[in-house]
Structure formats: C-alpha cells, structure tokens
C-alpha cells in the first residue's frame, strides 16, 4: 500500500504526462497553454510530495515560487493570444504558418 505522499508523487507523474500530451497534440493554442499550466502544477505536486517524503521544507518553498511564475506566464501567454486573435481571428496552431523556412 502506497503512503499518501508517494501516491501524490505518482499522481504528479500522471498529471505530467497528461500535460505533455495536451501541449503536443492539441491544436488550439488556449488548450496548449492549459497543458503548460498542468505541467507546472504537476511539478508543484511532485515538489510537495518530495518535501513530505524527504522531510525537508525546501520543496514547499519552491511551490510558492512556481505559483508566482505560472501566474506571470499565464498573463503573458493570454496577452499574446489576444493580440493574435485580433490579427488573425483564430487561435488554432495550424494557422501559424507564416514562418516556414
């Protein structure tokens, strides 16, 4: 039987995979951004679980930093998506094809 923090750790791996697949296979940029947020939160969960398992407090500190960073990234990303939508009236990744060597 897995203990609670270990369960959290394995669940964070699952979340990480979900996030990675969302970023890689979704075509809508908004959903891709959601995938990035899932990835960051998976890492957060892993840090908190690791903090409990190792009995040190560093991991919980990291979590707060990451939450701030995730907020910054979301702000920047949404701003970009809005500008893109104004220019192209679309947020699909397939419409981003001006830059092909």
């Amino acid at each position, binding site marked *: 039987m897995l203990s609670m923090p270990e369960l959290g*750790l394995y669940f*964070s791996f699952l979340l*990480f995979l979900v*996030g*990675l697949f969302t*970023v890689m296979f979704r075509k809508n*940029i908004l959903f*891709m*951004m959601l*995938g*990035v947020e899932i*990835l*960051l939160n*998976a*890492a957060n969960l*892993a*840090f908190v*679980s*690791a*903090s*409990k*398992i*190792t*009995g*040190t*407090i*560093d*991991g919980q*500190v*990291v979590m707060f*930093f*990451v939450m701030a*960073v995730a907020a*910054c*990234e979301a702000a*920047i*990303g949404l701003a*970009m*998506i809005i*500008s*893109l939508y104004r*220019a*192209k009236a679309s947020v699909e990744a397939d419409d*981003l094809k*001006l*830059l092909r*060597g």
Partner: protein
Amino acid sequence: MEQLVQARLQEILPSAGFYLQASPILLLLVGALAALLLGVFRADPEKPNFTSLGVAVVSLVAAAAMPLVLRGAAPAAHLGSGFLADGLSRFSFVVIALGTLFTLFSAALTEKGRQLLRPELVCLLMFSSAGLMVMTSSGEFLTFFTGLEITSVSLYVLVGYQRQDVKALEAALKYFLLGATAAAIILMGMALVYLHVGSLRWSDMGTLRLSPDAPFALMGMFLVLCGLAFKLAIAPFHSWAPDVYQASHSTLTGYMATLVKFSVALVVLRILGASVAQASSNLVLLFWVLGALSIAIGSTFGLVHNSVKRMLAYSSVANAGYFCLAFAALAANPSSVSAREALTAYAAVYTVLNLGAFAVLAWLEDGNNEDLLKEELSGLGSKSPFAALALTVFLFGLAGIPPAAGFFGKFMLINAAVSEGLTGLAILMVLFSVVSLFYYLSLMVEMWLKPASRNSIAVTASSDSGLHRLLIGTAVVVSLVIGVVGPRWASMLDYTVATEAPSVAIGVRSLHPTTATASSDPVDAVKKKALDTAAKTPRP
C-alpha cells in the same frame, strides 16, 4: 531549536558583502525601473525615449565596472547558496552587461532599432539581463529557476514586441509555448533530483550517483539537462530557433542568440562541475548524442536556407553542439580544468562573434527588407566595403578560420574532449565544421565575388554614421584581438566555486520537535551537530 533557526537565518539573510557583490544585478534592476518610470513622463508614447536609454547605459556601465573593481574578493556564498560570488559569476556579469550595452547601442544607431527603442524595451532588456545574472550566479535550483523565468518571460515579450507584425507575434507564441514547456520539464527534473537528494543545493549533490539504480535521480537530471538544451537550442530541441531568430529584429536576435546561450552554458557548467561530482557515463552518452545531432543538423540544414538570419540560426545550433563537447568532457571528468576553460572561452568568443554579426545585419536591414536573403548581399563588398569586411571577419570567426576568434575556441574544445577520450565527437565536429564552411563561404562569395544585381542592397546613408562604424569596429577589433592572442584569459579566471559553510537545511521534523523527539531521531542529532559546528566557525 531557536538556536538552530537563528544560526540558519544568519546564513540566509543578506549581509553587507552580498549587496556589494550583487551590485551589478541590483544596479540593473534599479536602472530598469528608472527607465520604465521615465517613460511615464513622455509626450508621445510611440517615440523613442533617449532619457531612459541614458539611464540604462549608465547603470549597465556601472554594472560592468563593479565586478572588475571587486575582482580580488575571495569566493563566497550569500543567501545560503542563492548567490555565489566567485570568478565565474563576476566574469559572466561583465560579459552580460557589456553585451546588453552593445545591443542597446546597436538598436539606438539603426533607424528600425530606434523605432523599437521605447522605455518598455529598455526595461525588458535590462530585466532579462538581470535574470541572466541571477542564473549564472546561483548555486541551487530555486534561484536558478527564478532567474531563468525572469529572463524567459522578458524574452517572450521582446520577441512579440512589434505587435503590428503578425510574423513576430507568431514567433513569440511558438517561443512561449515551447519555452514554457521546457521550463516545466526543468522543474519536474528538479523535483525528481530533490526527491533523491533532499536538497536543492548543487553542492549537496556530490554524492549523487547517476545510474539506473537510482531511476528518479537519473531521470531528473536528464529532464533538467534536456530542458536546458532547449534553452541552448541544441538539436533535437532546436525547432523554435530559426523561426524566432528570423521574426524578431536583428539586434534582439543577436541578444537572444548570444547572451542567453552564454549564461545557460555557464549554468550547465556549474551543475555538472559542482553537483554531479561523480563521473557519469550516462550523462556523457546524453551529451554525445545531443552534440552529434546538433552539430550535424546545424551544419547541414543551414545549407538549404536562403534567409541570412535562418542560416545564422542554424549556425548557432551547430555552435551549441560544440558546447556539448565541453559538457561531455565535464560529465566524464567533473574536475576537468581544460573543459571549464574551453567552455568559458568558446562561449565568450561565440558571444562576441554573433553579437557582431547580427549588429551588421541590423545595419544592413535599415531601409531594406527585415529579413535579408542571401542574394541580396551580392556586390556588398564594392558598395559598402566596411560592412562587408566586418561581416566577413565575424563569419570567418564562426567558421573557425585561424586569424579570427573562433579557431582557438574550437581548438580548446577539441583538446578538452580528446583528453577525456571523446575522440569520436571531436572528429565529428571537425568534419561538420568543414560542411558548415560551405554556407559561411557562400555568403562571402555573394558579398565579394558576385556583381551587384537589381535586388542587392547597401547600407543606407541615414544609418551610416561614424558612431555606428565605431560600434561595429569595436566588435571586429575585439574578435581579432581574441583571435590573435588566443583566449589565454580563460586560464586566468578563477574557477573555484564558492560553497556555503557546511550545514543542513532545516527539516520539517526539526521544526516540529513534538512530532519526532529530537533526541531519539539519529538524523536530527547529526543535523544539530553539523549546525552547531557551523555556527561556531566564523563566517568568511
């Protein structure tokens, strides 16, 4: 318990020495905020603001001078391991501050650059440089990650800075999505390493044995290094680089292609040199594969492209592959001095060469297309010989032809790799250097041997000022001087990494003595003893 916390607080809280040593970072942050504030009082928000540029220049010059003034100081760790004041970080402060200064001047002296030069750009550029400095001087994962994100978030905005340009917006979004994913991957790797070691400090990871017996640690280190490889644009994580380099303004491209790679390379040096003190064949293999792929892809894909900036982007992918030689040598022998010297020397030389090359491109783009094609350079040698000559020197340097700077850097890299038994990778690098010579030479053929055609361009009179020639000339002279003298200075750097006084992070258990009796817990007893001895020894 009180005592323990007090002793730890003494180590973590900033001291007077910290403010002195970290003054370049603080100067940049203060300068950036001042530049932003000055923007509030401007009459026309779309006009360039030279007051904020002046503030930025002053703070950057001061930031570059401070490390030189303080160069005699002994290596010391501040804020726990959050800020390491040692030779490596002082060196990186100078390079980053001067590189940012060069970027700002290059923007201010070109017509298109001046249109960008609003206070926000100055502020973002300086925040980004401050982030780079935080990164290169950090001694643990948390500070490093914070610095990385300060830089990345500023850069996402900088790439998409010309909001009217849909291409730039598209490049910015690509960069943002991939960059944020890479950051999350680095973070997950950090979590796994932390799970294994129980500490975020790189100096605590000396015992980390990376083998399949410790799957979490191995996987974690792999994730961290792959995420960093993305930031360095090492193949197969390079797909964003050509798009982003092509779509942003050349001066900003120069900044991204050089200083970011320089700083991330130094971080990899710190991680490999300090944390993975055990030689690891798994990491050697990782860098072998990444390096070989990157060198091969960078050298061959550049051949098929017609856009000069895309070509230089692939050249930078190949150059990031050359870094891998030093990384692999370091992974094979973490105490290797020659690998350290080769990496710092080559990273700095590469920075000078590419900053120069992109500054010349920005100069040529003035009054012409944003994205120069190869055939547009035809006949440049007779139309504007100074620009053509400067570009030739930088391209020769990147190709590694002896009189220019790149040769010694490559020589040192190969030397370091061969002495650690990585002969195969060194041979691969030499072979593909020859291949990459084709595209460097094809540019030179266009410039010097082909006659000017209807499409070909020249430097416009408005940006052809004496000051601009002086700026480009400085970069040429620096790269030639390094080339002739050889990067001897790399061996004069002090590679001693500052380390914290030996102590153990305060654990959850020691903060709550009721849940685990401190006397009966052997781990806590050991920690307490270590802390007591640390508290008795005077701090440097």
